[in-house]
């Protein structure tokens, strides 16, 4: 099994302009608005956001806290619904999809990586990585195991399969979370501040892993980050301020 971490640094990076010209859009947001309403306050989290992300693109989203980055990621990840606007995945609008259809789309097309890893502490590393496949029909126990082993091998954690999250360092936990995202073989990875809880060395390691995935596997990655340096390693940087795209 190819180890992404080992090879990520040697592959050339495609430019955003090249991709825009050749690749088809995988995510399209049109006039997306998200308003949180309570009895007394109305908060606009996203204001008429238009965004197209092409297949194989690595996009980073930056902005101050509370500017709507995570809300945007939730909407792209079909975890939240916009107040208005259209989301298209592979050219198909998803607003009319049922809970079951949205769950299936999330399971098959999207992999999530979170700042706080979101590993289940009572499950071993292997069981954690198997999780997305558990919700996919037609994948048997043996296949689940094999794909989970393969994903862990990709992130260089094949020796830690029987460990529990509490026995791992922060960087290792995030690699497990990436392996979990990879196990389902998704077209898109949505990473919400994946290095936010890590020191700079670990952060670099995770960033290299994501870059390797994008270059070698052609995985589309949308990453929310506060780290300017890491954001500049991606093909496109989108800046947000007060719920609006400013760049």
């Amino acid at each position: 099994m190819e180890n992404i971490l080992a090879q990520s640094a040697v592959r050339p990076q495609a430019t955003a302009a090249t991709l825009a010209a050749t690749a088809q859009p995988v995510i399209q947001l049109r006039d997306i608005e998200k308003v949180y309403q309570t009895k007394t306050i109305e908060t606009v989290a996203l204001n008429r956001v238009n965004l197209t992300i092409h297949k194989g693109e690595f996009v980073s989203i930056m902005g101050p806290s509370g500017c709507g980055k995570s809300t945007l990621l939730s909407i792209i990840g079909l975890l939240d619904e916009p107040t208005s606007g259209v989301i298209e995945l592979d050219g198909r609008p998803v607003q009319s999809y049922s809970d079951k259809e949205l769950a299936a789309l999330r399971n098959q097309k999207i992999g999530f990586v979170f700042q706080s890893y979101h590993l289940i502490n009572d499950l071993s590393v292997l069981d954690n990585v198997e999780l997305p496949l558990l919700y996919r029909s037609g994948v048997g126990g043996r296949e689940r195991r094999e794909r989970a082993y393969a994903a862990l091998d990709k992130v260089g954690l094949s020796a830690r399969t029987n460990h529990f999250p509490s026995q791992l360092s922060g960087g290792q936990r995030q690699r497990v979370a990436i392996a979990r995202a990879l196990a389902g073989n998704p077209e898109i990875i949505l990473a919400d501040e994946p290095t936010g809880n890590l020191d700079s060395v670990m952060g670099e390691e995770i960033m290299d892993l994501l870059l390797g995935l994008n270059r070698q596997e052609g995985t589309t990655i949308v990453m929310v980050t506060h780290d300017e340096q890491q954001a500049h390693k991606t093909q496109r940087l989108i800046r947000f301020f007060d719920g609006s795209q400013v760049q």
Partner: protein
Amino acid sequence: MIRHLFTLIWNRKRANFLLMAEILLSFFVLFVVSLLLVNNYHNYRQPKGFAPDNVWEFNVDPGQDTVDRKGTLRRLVQELQATPGVAAVTWTSSNTPYSFSNMNTDQYRYKDQKAPLTEVYDADDEMVRVLGQKVVAGRWFDRRDDAATHTPVVVNQKFAEAMFGQESAVGKVLTDDKRTRQWQVVGVIEAYRSGNDFAANEAALFERHVLQDTAQYGNNTLLVRVQPGSGAVLEQQLVRKIKAVTKGWDANVNTLAENRQDKLRIMLTPLVALGLVGGFLILNVALGLFGVLWYNISQRKAEIGLRRALGATGRGISRQFLGEMLVVTTLGVTGGLLLAVQFPLLGVFGLPPQVYALAMSLATLLIFALTAICALQPSRTAAGIHPAVALREE
């Protein structure tokens, strides 16, 4: 998914231990309550062995009158039998059906076989006409027994099986433990559950007593079978006759139906009390389970969000929480069943095996229903948690 649930529960065994222990204890309480209910129902379904309808019980008390008590009683029986509306009269011991009196002994022997604890009744030739016992082998007492060398007895099937196994009981001679007395079985009746409607079919033996001049005076209870529909008019008529024949003996009358109701009320009171205590306990357990599940879900919101993100539907989340609860229940019930099965193996209450099996099944069913009901609402709540919100919980 089932394997995943078991893995999750096993890895959380410390956290789930108290919950499992609570389910185990609840199962055990339910098992004991079920055992009581099933056993009573099992007994209730057994043949009574006699017909209590239209039977009146007269208790006569001669008081200070010591003159020719047997002769007076004999005349009284004859007078009552001759009364229109009376079908039959029997003179018997005080342990009549649904009375609070009983006589039992284990003195009977057949060869080396010792009898179980046996309820003993005094009976005359007419009793079978009054109480309608169903004779399944041999016959009831009659004049042929006047010349018997051993005291004639009629036993129930329970006694016959315990003493003679597959052999025919009729003609067998029983002795007492000192071999000083002998009884000969002349007939076998199907059953005789006279204590109350929920009484077990215990071994029973009827010993023939007739109102001869040589007979010992002791019994002063008369059971009278009357024509269906007889009421207060006949009752007054019979009481007047008793007064007239006995010249002032005290007499009181009850129907067996009234005695049955009285006994039932007394039997049911502790059962209802026990049922209430059991019900209250189960309610507490249910509230406890409910609380634990609410807490569990509030603690696991981030996990719920994660699972939704990874492809679980709302219904899938609900099923998972319900499934986890059922796995915990299965483990608790397995422990409870291991304890419960010791009862029949060790013969603790001496009940039939099918009663234990039914009680275990009932308790299992109840505890699963209870946990499923308690888990339903929290699981639905878990399903309704918004994934984006849940993911922000940590």
